[in-house]
């Protein structure tokens, strides 16, 4: 068949992309740079400075949650990869079950546990321990992020570790590397693809979440997602909401770009 025919076959999809992916983003940009009457303005962009604290908090929470996920998931994925293949299948399934449960319900479950009159405090009271305040703290929000997105970190790490040849680690130890040196110089470079994709899959939803902060932060810890949600669902300031979304998108795409560059050079380094 002619090349033109093949391009013709994918044309409906290409058209779909233009109308429902590219055009919406163009409209976001349009709203971000216009006011309610449709006139060009910088106001929405300069208005972002009002949200500097929120933005900083979102990025900070996102980074903390991602680091905790990485620290928990890396050894976990390693343990997974070292078990028998049949056990591995079961373990992977067990990690996927919570992932496929709706994240609203998962977050809600944590809320039920953490509340001041919630299950943890009830248990503590029952055994005579003092009451602890967990809900509506920054810790609770970060815990919610870690709890919700941990499987997204474990799976890519596990995949890259199953591809790792176990003999390489033995070889490193054989050549006199300590456990830490083996981890730093062999394991981490060889699993960099999994690390990069795990970080992406945890960081992006963490930074942009709004439900977790509402339920577990009690409105005290507003994140970028909350601000966007507010502008579109209650304040109806689409222009401001669009400018914040634009900022979030540019920031995320920039991070992904940097991460991918990092991932590439790591792999290139291994080959060289």
């Amino acid at each position: 068949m002619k090349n033109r025919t093949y391009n013709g076959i994918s044309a409906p999809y290409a058209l779909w992309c233009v109308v429902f992916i590219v055009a919406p983003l163009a409209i976001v940009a349009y709203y971000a740079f216009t006011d309610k009457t449709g006139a060009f303005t910088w106001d929405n962009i300069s208005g972002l400075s009002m949200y500097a604290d929120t933005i900083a908090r979102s990025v900070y929470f996102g980074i903390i949650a991602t680091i905790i996920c990485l620290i928990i998931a890396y050894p976990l994925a390693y343990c997974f990869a070292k078990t028998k293949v049949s056990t591995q299948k079961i373990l992977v399934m067990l990690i996927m079950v919570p992932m496929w449960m709706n994240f609203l319900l998962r977050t809600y479950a944590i809320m039920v546990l953490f509340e001041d009159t919630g299950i943890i405090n009830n248990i503590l009271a029952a055994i005579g321990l003092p009451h602890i305040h967990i809900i509506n703290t920054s810790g609770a929000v970060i815990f919610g992020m870690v709890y919700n997105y941990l499987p997204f970190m474990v799976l890519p790490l596990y995949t890259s570790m199953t591809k790792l040849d176990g003999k390489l680690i033995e070889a490193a130890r054989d050549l006199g590397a300590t456990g830490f040196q083996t981890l730093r110089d062999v394991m981490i470079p060889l699993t960099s693809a999994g690390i990069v994709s795990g970080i992406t899959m945890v960081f992006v939803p963490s930074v942009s979440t709004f439900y977790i902060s509402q339920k577990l932060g009690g409105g005290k810890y507003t994140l970028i997602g909350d601000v966007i949600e507010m502008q579109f669902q209650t304040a109806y300031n689409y222009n401001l909401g669009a400018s914040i979304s634009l900022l979030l998108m540019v920031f995320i795409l920039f991070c992904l770009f940097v991460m991918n560059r990092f991932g590439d050079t790591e792999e290139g380094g291994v080959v060289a």
Partner: protein
Amino acid sequence: MKKRLSVKAKVYMVLIFILLYAPIFVLIFYSFNSSNSTSVFAGFSTRWYGELFSDLKTMAAFKNTLVLAVLSSVISTVLGTIAATGLHYSRTKWYKSSVMTVTNIPMMNPDIVTGISMMLLFVFIGMMLKLSGVLGFTTMLIAHITFELPYVILNILPRFKSMDKYLTEAACDLGCTPVQAFFKVTLPYIKAEILAAFIMAFTLSLDDFVISYFVSGPEFQTLPIRIYSMTKRRVTPDMYALSAIIFVAVFILLLLTNIAQDEDFRERLKKRRERRSKTA
């Protein structure tokens, strides 16, 4: 060759799994509580399940979710399969690479940005056409197809790459028109990936909240949106019951797909079939 895991490692794995499952199991446990308190377990009851099933709005949302998931996943699988075929064979480099770049955008973009961008598009079109209340079933369907398509395409394209490029030529050589070759050779070759893509699209649609939340209208709600509005207000034990049901459903579905993908199992099935055909 593989060393057995140390006790420390096993304890670590068990702890993480307890952490992951504890909140869910606690909810399931209290879903059978006869009172709506989480402090006392007043006695076993299926009261909340009864309330859940008699809640018309939740039931309607459940039905909507299924309708939307089936429709959007069928459309996105068909459209995605056709697109992947065209893209694989395309020799126009700039076209191919720009379409692939755009395909990746919804996968990289935060859901909230995808959601509001589509909402703004629909609102914008509504404004142009002077329509009110554009958000509803159609916009939900379009949004779901849009975020499912990249997963479908990225699921199928790698399989094409592993296909012997002479297979379709061989079919044409034996007398197939290019269209016949597609249905008789290409499609059977990629059918497992198409099925996987379909299941993926279906579950993504069932599970999605963020994008749906922004493009939905008041008269068409899905289950996640219903959950959102329910959990916004007060402690609602019928949501515990819903969690329990979804948990069991997800568990069974994953178990089934695992069994279906299990090679030993498939091998045994194939052998049995071969034996049967031999005796026949």
